[in-house]
Each structure stands twice: as structure tokens, then as C-alpha cells.
């Protein structure tokens, strides 16, 4: 279990557990960063930074409160937000360029859904029609404009969004009756 690996890293600095996490997540994280616009080298660096952050922050991971994938994903996502934040900004009017504000997103790493809920979601995601899963992947993990998505799928963006809504409603329904985290 991947969440047990994070716990082992936290408790004993278990290198074998870290290796398991690295070999599972780093190649997928590289794909994630490439799809969101990084080149191969930068994506690999970001994947490595994510796993190093997992090593450093493992003690903060509570398997009763979060699933491994969600936890690691939010670490990667926050690194991606840093990348976006460092994008070259063109100043508005005649003002000097400045960094945008620090990320104070309420969806910080502290807030998660419980691992019970993640398990339910996991089963619901696997029960989705493969086309809907493909659509979720395309929507969530591609740096593409709406017109590019329309061309690729051959359906208007309104239809794309209504199918996404249906997929997300099915996932949400899988959590009904499950206590909120």
C-alpha cells in the first residue's frame, strides 16, 4: 500500500518505501507536468521535487485523513502553481512588473477528503465509462484551449462540459451517505 510507504518514510526514513513511492509516482508525475506545459527536463525535475517534498513532509501525512494519491497530487499541483506563478507577466498598464500574490489557496495541503471517501471515489472512477475517464483526463491534465479540445473530440465544448458534469456528479454520488471529512 502506497500510504503505508509514506508512513514508513515518516517513521523510520525507510529507503525501500521511498523507492516504491518514487518508482510509482515519479513517472506519472512527469507525465502530469509535461501535459501541463513543462518540457521533458523540467517535468522530470518537478517530479523529483515532488518526491523530495514527500520525503520531507511525510510526517504530516495522516492515512486516516487523506489518501496517498490525493496527498501527493496536491504537493505536485502546488509545485505546478509555482511554475504558473513564475510565468513571465506582462504588466498591466504603465506599472512595473511584480510577482503575483503568494498562494493562499484555501485548498492547501491541510484540507483533504478522508481515505474512506477516496476509496469510494476510486471505485466510482473505475466504474465510469472509459470515455468519461478519458474526458476527465483530457480536461484536467492538458494545457489545451477549448477549441483544441473541440477539434480533438469532435464535439462542441458545451457537450464536453455537460459530460464532465455528469461524470463528476456520478463521482460525487458515490460519496453520499459517507461522512464528510
Amino acid at each position: 500500500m502506497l500510504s503505508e510507504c509514506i508512513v514508513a518514510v515518516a517513521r523510520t526514513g525507510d529507503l525501500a518505501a521511498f523507492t516504491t513511492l518514487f518508482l510509482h509516482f515519479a513517472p506519472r508525475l512527469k507525465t502530469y507536468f509535461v501535459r501541463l506545459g513543462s518540457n521533458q527536463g523540467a517535468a522530470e525535475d518537478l517530479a523529483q521535487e515532488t518526491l523530495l517534498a514527500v520525503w520531507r513532509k511525510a510526517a504530516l501525512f495522516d492515512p486516516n485523513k487523506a489518501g496517498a494519491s490525493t496527498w501527493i497530487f496536491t504537493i505536485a499541483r502546488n509545485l505546478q502553481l509555482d511554475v504558473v506563478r513564475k510565468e513571465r507577466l506582462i504588466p498591466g498598464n504603465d506599472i512595473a512588473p511584480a510577482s503575483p500574490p503568494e498562494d493562499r489557496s484555501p485548498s492547501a495541503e491541510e484540507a483533504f477528503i478522508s481515505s474512506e471517501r477516496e476509496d469510494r471515489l476510486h471505485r466510482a472512477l473505475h466504474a465510469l465509462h472509459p470515455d468519461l475517464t478519458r474526458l476527465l483526463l483530457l480536461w484536467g491534465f492538458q494545457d489545451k484551449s477549448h477549441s483544441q479540445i473541440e477539434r480533438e473530440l469532435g464535439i462542441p465544448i458545451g457537450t464536453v462540459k455537460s459530460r464532465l458534469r455528469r461524470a463528476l456528479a456520478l463521482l460525487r454520488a458515490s460519496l453520499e451517505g459517507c461522512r464528510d471529512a
Partner: protein
Amino acid sequence: MTPEPAIRHHPSEPTLLAHATGRLGLAGRLVIEAHLAVCPECRRSVRLMEAVGGLLLDALPPSPLASGALERAMARLGETPPDTRPQAAPPVSQHTGSITLPPPLEGLPVGRLRWLGSGILHTVLLRASGRSTLHLLQVRPGVSLPRHAHRGTELTYVIAGAFEDEIGHFGPGDLAEVEAEVRHRPVAVGPVDCICLLATSGRLRFTSTLYRLIQPFISF
């Protein structure tokens, strides 16, 4: 502190998913964060979307890593964590008068608002790569917000005042999400100026003759 206003209009779930996966452009993200700061319901939704993102991460095809990637990571395990906190923005004088930006945008310098037409003040807060642009608009009651055609989804967050369009009434904290091609005509309503953030992607093309005429000068 004033009580939080009742929020009636929220971002769509597909937009919250794109936000949770880090895919939204910077301008869109800041507008969504302004809404999340006042909307516990959408914050809960984002947690769900993050879990969906985590599960989708598992479904991504793995990319081959460069040789020695694991060894290089192992060699760095003893490193002191780098300070990843972004540097504070340099202090910039504010020319906004009474406009207070929502907390997620604090520190973003605000340029001088300029007249974009009768009753409409405007400034660009930031332009990020990929043509993602964040605008600040102040519109006098009874005046239409500029009509324009655009590509991609347009996100509007109401800071103060209100506007109405064919969809409904949008007040403080509300987020309007309008698809490209939708011709809507929002009009500021109520006793005070409508102050809103507008995130656009793609190049804006104003549809009314006036704005088309002045567009070259305002670099919207």
C-alpha cells in the same frame, strides 16, 4: 467585518476541476480563489476535485525517466529543504481609491483606472503567458459592461455592487462563468458602482463599434 454575502452563482464543476489540477491560467485561478475565499461550498467541491485529480494521476501513463533519476533523488534526501516561499512583491503605490482587492489578490499592484467609455473605469491587473488576462472594472449603475466576443471561458467575480444579465443577478462574492460565443449583456445595477474582476483567455474582440474603435488604444 461585514457579514459574508449570500452567494448565488458559483463556478461550474469542470472549472473547479481545472482549478484543482492546476490547469487554469493565472488570471482565472486568481478569480476562482477570490470566490473560494468566501464560498465554503466550493471549497468542499475543490477538495473532491483534488481527490479526483489524485486518482486520475494514477491513471496517467508513466513517462520514462532519465537514467539514474532514482539515484539522484536518493542523493538529495539529506538536503535542507529549499525555501520555496515566493518573494514578496515590491511595494507599489495604490491608485485604487476605495477599491479593496479580495485577499487572494492582495499585493497585486493596481495601475490607474482609465475611462473605457462612459461610466466604465478599467485597468489590467496582470497579463500572464497564454493570453490569460485579469481585468478590474468599475461600472456605474445603469451602464452596460463592455460587450465583446471572446474565446475560452470568461470568469467574472463581483467585488462590490451588482450586475444583471440574461442569466440573473450577480452580487458580491458571486462568480459568473460565460462561455465563448455567448452574447450576454451585463448591466450594472443597484445604488453603488459595480466593481468586478474579469479573467479572460484569448484575444478579446469588442463587438460594439465604439469599443472596436477605441480598442487599439486600450490594449484590452
